[in-house]
């Protein structure tokens, strides 16, 4: 046998560069920490620089395609989702510079784990090789478990343990599903699986469905699809607010990309079984998430259930399978990113390390009563995020909802569109509940500064950026959807 030729150009290192940068940044932080104790400002700066560099590297990928022995697949979808991941991370990072001291930020490992996690999710979205997807999934998740547990609360450990255990189970399901598909097709690459399965004209349907069930369960865990969603509220409640907001966005977009790659061709099979499965899952998710969000007393838990519902909403894009739906999916998630991260950041800015407002919740609804009278700016800001989440025009998420419902109508899923519309209407109720608390009730606190006592300039900056984006979405929606459209079309979805 000939020795393997080693050709740097053929490796197409550009495709892997963004992940290498984030990994390098993580290692750098770990090593620096060994020799010198530095404060969190330094780590935040390094992390920010790393992520910005990674974003720059993404834009340097001019030739979309495969690289690194064809393991990497950097197409338009990968580029957009990496941008969403890194964008959310860039918005997240300054939230570590809080006014109060929180334990987790004292450790350099927190930032290293964070960068490892980003790298994991980046790998997950920019490949169609199940091995690398699995690897990325686990790298990201394991780092995330640690990040959750580092928040020094009794509940954080509980939520980390729950998340971990269920995650390990889901990993097993994912591996078994991969094994079934490997058995059917003899390949671990989604692209080749598609060729083989479509070549046989879906002849092995029962087996394929078995594998699909495993995959739905495994990815459904990541995407918090009902009934695999049970971890979501507990983990969000236990994790620190910005991390909860981050979790509602980044792992999910990675999961969505994998689901998109995996289910897209299965859902388009003639008998439509997989499509129907996804239909049921999506409808159940958005409805049950909504219904549960209605009866919550804690704002964070309400947001957790609502993000379950949002995930169900976006899930519909995969079953529709049209280009418009896929564009809508990324568009929705981009808009949701700013809104949801903003909402969670509002909770974060009002957080006190020791003061409890309620026996159980850090942020009960009653904490916010009459907020407009004692801290009108914060109340208005919060209201903007809530209205956006509720899908009230002209705020950001409204456009996403419009786009997706439009896609549903255009692809003849009329009942689905109807259910989506009804669910959007139900959702308004619980978001407005908070607005009602803030604007129509009498103040529960004496001092308005309680709502931004954790705030510093970087936190406020993040909030302002998010709020401006939410409000200005009416103007940015056109170029944004055009950008997403070109990338999604270029990668053939």
């Amino acid at each position, binding site marked *: 046998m000939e020795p393997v030729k080693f050709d740097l150009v053929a490796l197409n290192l550009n495709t892997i560069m963004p992940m290498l940068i984030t990994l390098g940044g993580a290692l750098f932080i770990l090593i620096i920490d060994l020799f010198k104790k530095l404060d969190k400002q330094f780590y935040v700066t390094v992390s920010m620089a790393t992520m910005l560099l990674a974003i720059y590297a993404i834009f340097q990928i001019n030739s979309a395609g495969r690289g690194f022995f064809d393991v990497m697949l950097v197409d338009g979808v990968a580029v957009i989702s990496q941008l969403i991941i890194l964008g959310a991370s860039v918005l997240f990072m300054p939230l570590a510079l809080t006014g109060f001291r929180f334990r987790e930020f004292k450790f350099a490992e927190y930032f290293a784990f964070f960068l490892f996690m980003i790298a994991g999710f980046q790998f997950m979205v920019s490949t169609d090789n199940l091995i690398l997807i699995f690897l990325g999934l*686990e790298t990201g998740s394991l780092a995330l478990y640690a990040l959750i547990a580092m928040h020094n609360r009794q509940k954080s*450990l509980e*939520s980390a343990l729950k998340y971990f255990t269920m995650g*390990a189970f889901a990993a*097993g399901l994912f591996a078994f599903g991969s094994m079934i598909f490997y058995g059917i097709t003899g390949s671990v690459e989604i692209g080749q699986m598609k060729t083989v399965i479509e070549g046989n004209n879906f002849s092995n349907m029962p087996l394929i469905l078995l594998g699909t069930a495993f995959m739905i369960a495994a990815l459904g865990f990541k995407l918090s699809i009902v009934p695999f969603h049970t971890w979501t509220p507990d983990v969000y409640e236990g994790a620190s607010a910005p991390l909860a907001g981050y979790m509602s966005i980044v792992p999910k977009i990675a999961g969505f990309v994998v689901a998109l790659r995996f289910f897209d061709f299965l859902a388009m099979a003639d008998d439509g079984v997989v499509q129907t499965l996804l239909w049921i899952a999506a409808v159940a998710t958005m409805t049950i998430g909504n219904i549960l969000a209605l009866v919550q007393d804690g704002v964070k838990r309400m947001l957790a259930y609502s993000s379950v519902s949002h995930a169900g909403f976006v899930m519909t894009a995969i079953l529709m399978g049209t280009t418009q739906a896929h564009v809508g999916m990324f568009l929705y998630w981009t808009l949701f990113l700013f809104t949801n991260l903003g909402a969670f950041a509002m909770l974060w800015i009002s957080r006190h390390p020791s003061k409890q407002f309620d026996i159980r919740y850090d942020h009960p609804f009653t904490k916010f009563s009459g907020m407009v009278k004692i801290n009108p700016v914060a109340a208005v800001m919060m209201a903007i995020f809530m209205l956006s989440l509720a899908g009230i025009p002209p705020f950001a998420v409204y456009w996403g909802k419009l786009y997706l419902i439009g896609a549903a109508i255009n692809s003849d899923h009329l009942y689905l569109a109807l259910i989506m519309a009804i669910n959007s209407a139900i959702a308004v109720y619980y978001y407005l509940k908070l607005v009602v608390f803030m604007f129509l009730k009498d103040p529960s606190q004496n001092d308005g500064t309680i709502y931004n006592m954790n705030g510093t300039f970087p936190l406020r900056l993040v909030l302002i950026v998010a709020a401006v984006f939410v409000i200005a979405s009416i103007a940015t929606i056109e170029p944004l959807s055009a950008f997403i459209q070109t990338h999604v079309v270029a990668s053939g979805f």
Partner: protein
Amino acid sequence: MITLNHYLIVAAVLFVIGMIGVMRRKNLLMLFFSTEILLNSVNIGFVALSHYLNDLSGQIFAFFIIAIAASEVAVGLGLLILLYKRKNTVDLDVIQNMHG
């Protein structure tokens, strides 16, 4: 004669055992064992399929699953030790402060 089917049946049986363990166990340590069984059942399946299909990628997958299982155990045990330090038990019924 042991065919591919035998291996796959073993894998499936192991997987179901792991799954039942995951559902029934109240001891977190045992729960982690169960998840390890899940992953190892997959390994058996992968290696058998790889041999049968004459394709190496299954075995590579198995390698990675082993590595990931190890790191998962590391993280899991770390969390478990933390729990044990605080509560002096590894019973998962003690961690239900959050519900509803």
